[in-house]
């Protein structure tokens, strides 16, 4: 089975966000695999363990995204592709999806996995867009995946409810939290990962027109939320505090 994982390197979720001149500052931040993409890597490696085949992880990013790919290789992926955006070409979700789809198109694939969102941009667009670009089916926010020959059964999280969905290969699925428990790379895994093939591509190497890369949306400002003032710690015995709190809230909200 040919398995492709699309992943993104993001800030560690511990990081505070700093904005200067309307832009997010990305120096010195700890970088990780987007946590939702990590579930996708884990699921891909599990698929390979059951069905055989190869796992290829693909990312679009700056040169330092290599470390995210090496982590995925250490978890058990076989090959990696880094599409470099060294010029920091300004791209929107459409451009990103077209680039990744163009890179995937050049290989054989039965299934593509990714996270259902990134913890930085959080738009949830790239997965469904890639599926449309490739002309294949997709199911987002999956909690369980079973494949038998070319028959696919998934459980999709729908705001807390579960849909049991049947489909076939090829397919693109995006991972929801709870799909699995990503493994920690083992020491031998990390050593092996250093020698596994990592292909570097430029955006220009891909079959994609300049028109397709033209962003159709633009960010005009970034800002931080207003700092919340610490409020009031209530005093007195618990019973009195509870009474006071309900009175305070009663002025502010209308409990149904």
């Amino acid at each position: 089975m040919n398995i492709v994982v699309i992943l993104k390197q993001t800030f560690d979720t511990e990081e505070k966000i700093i904005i200067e001149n309307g832009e997010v500052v990305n120096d010195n931040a700890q970088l990780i695999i987007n946590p939702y993409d990590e579930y996708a890597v884990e699921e891909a490696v599990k698929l390979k363990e059951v069905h055989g085949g190869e796992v290829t992880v693909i990312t679009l990013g700056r040169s330092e995204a290599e470390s995210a790919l090496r982590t995925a290789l250490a978890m058990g992926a076989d090959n990696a592709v880094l599409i470099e955006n060294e010029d920091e070409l300004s791209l929107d979700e459409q451009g990103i999806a077209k680039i990744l789809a163009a890179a995937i198109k050049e290989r054989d694939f039965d299934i593509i996995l990714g996270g259902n969102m990134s913890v930085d941009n959080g738009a949830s667009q790239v997965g469904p867009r890639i599926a449309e670009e490739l002309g294949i089916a997709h199911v987002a926010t999956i909690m369980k995946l079973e494949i038998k020959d070319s028959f696919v059964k998934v459980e999709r999280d729908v705001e807390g409810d579960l849909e049991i969905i049947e489909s076939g290969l090829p397919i693109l699925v995006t991972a929801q939290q709870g799909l699995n428990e990503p493994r920690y790379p083992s020491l031998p895994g990390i050593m092996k990962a250093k020698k596994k093939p990592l292909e570097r591509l430029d955006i220009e190497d891909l079959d994609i027109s300049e028109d397709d890369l033209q962003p159709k949306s633009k960010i005009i400002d970034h800002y931080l939320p207003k700092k919340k003032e610490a409020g009031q710690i209530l005093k007195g015995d618990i019973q009195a505090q509870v009474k006071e709190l309900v009175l305070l809230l009663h002025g502010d909200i209308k409990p149904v």
Partner: protein
Amino acid sequence: MTKVLVLAEAKNGKMRNVSFEVLTVAARIAKGDEVTACVFGSEAERYCQELAKYGAQKVFIVDHEELNNYSPDGYKQALLNVINEVKPKVVLTGHTSIGKDIFPRAAARLNAAVISDCIEVEAGDEIVFTRPIYSGKAFQKKVVTDGLIMATIRPNNIQAIENQAISETIKLLVEIKDLRTVVKEVVKKASGKVDLSEAKVVVSGGRGVKSSEGFKPLQELAGVLGGAVGASRAACDAEYCDYSLQIGQTGKVVTPDLYIACGISGAIQHLAGMSSSQIIVAINKDPEANIFQIADYGIVGDLFEVVPLLTEEFKKIIAEKQVITN
């Protein structure tokens, strides 16, 4: 003057409130031009009047049983047909399980931009969308510079305003075919409960809840307030509750009127998911807990003592209120 189309969405036989919120945004953008809604499935016709109440001047319905369950293929076929018929400049929907899935897929077909998960929309010379990034640790303002404007609006952030329109219902026949994903069964784990992302009140538990049993008093409080129960990652990782309840940078982002954090320390990832709530109450044994830094009101104490008392006190006040209104 801008023609706006809204994809409306029903859940469990009821129009979702977010659809009314989106219609309110649509009216703001349309500035007197036509606001059209569309709704899919065999039950679609039932919702036309309600949609008119919030300003839909036309309602396109695609009445097809293949649209009773969501599928990307089915919804894409229906939505692209409606867009082709209406020819709007702006297409909006809720940032829901359906909205965030179908908009990028349809947009890829139309070569259009989507601005996802918007919490505010300003309709001046340009339409400026505000959306959180890093789950609310920061925000960005975005505009569409070319072509059709598509956007998904986060539930619970824009007040739905009634705006009665005289509405025309138009049935559109669309051939729905070749569905590559088929919903075989829906397991209602969250049924009967208030949806976390749309809840006006969220009662949330952390490591301090100690067990799945420990969520019971939180569920009771949420029940009395008509709210939903949420959790921190620590509580989910410890298997006290399902991951679908997780609030934070991984998990859901919520913006209720009232957020009651019980036994939650307040890690930066959790704060990202809830700090835009209107009023935050923290209940924690540890007076040093980070959550108190962002809480409007804090009680230092054992949640197992405080939460049941709070439930009782709210019950009393609600009962008094009912006496007055009766």
